[in-house]
Structure formats: C-alpha cells, structure tokens
C-alpha cells in the first residue's frame, strides 16, 4: 500500500472529457501543490515525462534530431516508474507515427535525399521498412492511423489534433482504470489535465481570433 497515492488521488477533482469541459477544474498551481505530496523523485519523473511528451510544452518540436534523441535517452534513464515509462514510450511512438504520416503526406521518403534521421523511438525502423503501406503495418497497434491519414489528406489539422487527443484520453482512461488508487491514476490525471489545458487554450485562441474577425467586420461595415 502506498498511502501518498491515495491522498493525492483523493485530492484531485473529476476531469470531464476534454471536448465537453468549459474550464479547468484545477489550476496548474493547485495541481502542482497536490502532486507535490508525492515523493520528490516521483514528482521529478512526472514533470520530466510531461516535458518530453506534453501537448502543453511543445519544446521538442524546436530541437534538432540529435538534441532530441540525447534528451530522450537522458530522460529515460531517470524515468524508472514502469507505468510512466510505458506511457512515455507509447506516446513517443505515437508521435513518430504522426510525424511519419505528415512526412509521407509531404512527399518525403526516408533514406532518399531526406536522410533517415526523422524520428525517435522503437518504431522508426519498422515504419521506414513499411513506408509505402497505408498504416505502416501498425494498424493492429494503432487503429487510428487510417483516420489520421484521412484527416491529413483533407488538410484538417484541427480534426487530427482532436483525434490524437481523443486517442490519448482513452489510453489514459484505461491506465486510470487499471490503477485507480496507484501511481497510474496520478499519471493519467496529469496527462489528461495537459490535454484539457491544451484543448481549452486552443479554443480560447480561436474565440479571440473569431472575436477580432467580428470586430473587423463591424468596423469595415461602418
């Protein structure tokens, strides 16, 4: 029995499905206070994992391949909690699949002019070997690939983002069901919170943009 998990999970509110939420039920400050009740090492691993895969902090996107693989290797030495490690590895694989879909959509082929340093994780070699297959022969593991491919073809970036958030939300939901009073439940809450935060921030940007458009229309109409 790990009593601190029970305390932390008991202190966390219910997170509604990201598409139906109107606001965050818990601020970042409060979230960090609650997670701070864990051991320092666990907290460190959680935030490191969050930095690696979070939708909230898209830091990795601005890094070179070498920096990214180096950072990943370094982080995976620190992230030793099995459930967190498994989620991070799965998320990185998922991001690699999405990167491969985008590159293929742009007409890029691995090893032909573009080089082979395009992704990280366990699936890079497999994807490169099955580049021409619609689902990279990963359809059984990632059944959402055909849908993501269709959304990319339709240039529906928002739809793709929503699909990936939904996929991750379900993965985290299963993780929380497996460990409702364990570390997995805390991992699931943190990453669900990130998804919700990213979704609401995106919607806020859209609302601001729409507001500006409407103001522009009113001004030009007068």
């Amino acid at each position, binding site marked *: 029995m790990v*009593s601190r998990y029970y*305390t932390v*999970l*008991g*202190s966390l*509110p219910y997170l509604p499905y990201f598409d139906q939420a109107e606001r965050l039920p818990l601020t970042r400050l409060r979230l960090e206070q609650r997670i701070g009740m864990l051991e320092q090492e666990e907290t460190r691993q959680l935030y490191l994992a969050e930095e690696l895969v979070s939708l909230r902090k898209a830091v990795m996107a601005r890094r070179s391949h070498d920096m990214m693989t180096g950072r990943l290797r370094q982080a995976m030495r620190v992230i030793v909690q099995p459930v967190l490690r498994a989620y991070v590895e799965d998320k990185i694989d998922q991001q690699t699949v999405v990167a491969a879909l985008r590159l293929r959509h742009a007409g890029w082929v691995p090893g032909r002019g573009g080089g082979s340093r395009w992704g990280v994780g366990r699936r890079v070699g497999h994807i490169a070997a099955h580049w021409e297959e619609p689902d990279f022969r990963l359809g059984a593991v990632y059944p959402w690939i055909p849908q993501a491919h269709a959304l990319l073809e339709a240039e529906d970036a928002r739809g793709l983002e929503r699909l990936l958030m939904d996929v991750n939300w379900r993965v985290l939901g299963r993780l929380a069901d497996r460990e409702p009073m364990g570390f997995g439940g805390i991992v699931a809450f943190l990453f669900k919170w990130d998804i919700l935060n990213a979704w609401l921030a995106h919607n806020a940007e859209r609302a601001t943009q729409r507001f500006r458009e409407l103001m522009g229309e009113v001004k030009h109409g007068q």
Partner: protein
Amino acid sequence: MDSLILTLGWIGIYAPLALGAIGSMVGCARAGVSACGALLEVEGGYGRYIGVAAMPSSQSIYGIVVTMALRRELNIDNSPGIFGLGVLAGLALMASAFAQGDACAASISASKNKLEIFGISLAPAALVEGFAVFAFVFALVLSAGIPG
C-alpha cells in the same frame, strides 16, 4: 509433537483478532488518507468522509468475537480444529478489510465530485462487508462444533 499442536491451537485462537486488526489498520489507513486528500477539495461535510474511512474497523470487532468464541481449554483433540477455523476466519476478515479500504477510498474519491452519489457509491463497500459477515457468522456456528 504435542506442544506443536497446542501451539497451533493458540495461533488459531488469536488469529481472527490479529489478522482482523491488521486488515482494519490497512483498510482504515487506505480510506483515511484518501479522505484527507478529499478534504483539500471539498468545502464542507468533512465528517462524512472520515466516517466512511472508519468502515473497515468492523473486521477487528468480528475478529474479537471469533477469538472469544474459540477460546477454551486447549488439548490435542481440539487444537487442529481451532487452528483451521481461526486462521481461515482471520484471513477472510483481513482480506475483506483490505478490499473494503479500497472500496471506501473509491467511494470518497467519487462522491467528493458528485455528492448525490454518496450513498450508492458505498454499495461496493457494503457488499464487501456482507462477505466479512458471512465469514464471521459461520466461524461462530462452526466453533460450536469444536470439542471443548
């Protein structure tokens, strides 16, 4: 050999109380720390959550009663029966207290977000209590058949 059998008899007498108490400690602690977490999130009704956290304490009481029912002059004939009945009843009480602690923690976690489900969320914990009562009652019934 005789002393070993008599030792087993003593273990059997004390096992329901000891194992039931261990179960209650862990169960109450699981539900209790969850209640402490919930107190950070709710604005009132604190006693409700602490009260739920005390539910797994009943196994200790059942254990005390079974121990008292098994207590008698030990001899070679009755010690094996007391050992079997006492240890198995104790294990059942301990496991039910662990499970009830988890059920209470889940109930606290769920009902702090939606107060109207407070009653129904306690149903799993009540079901677990029912199984503990089965183990308790039949331990008492069977203890009557052990030679005094």
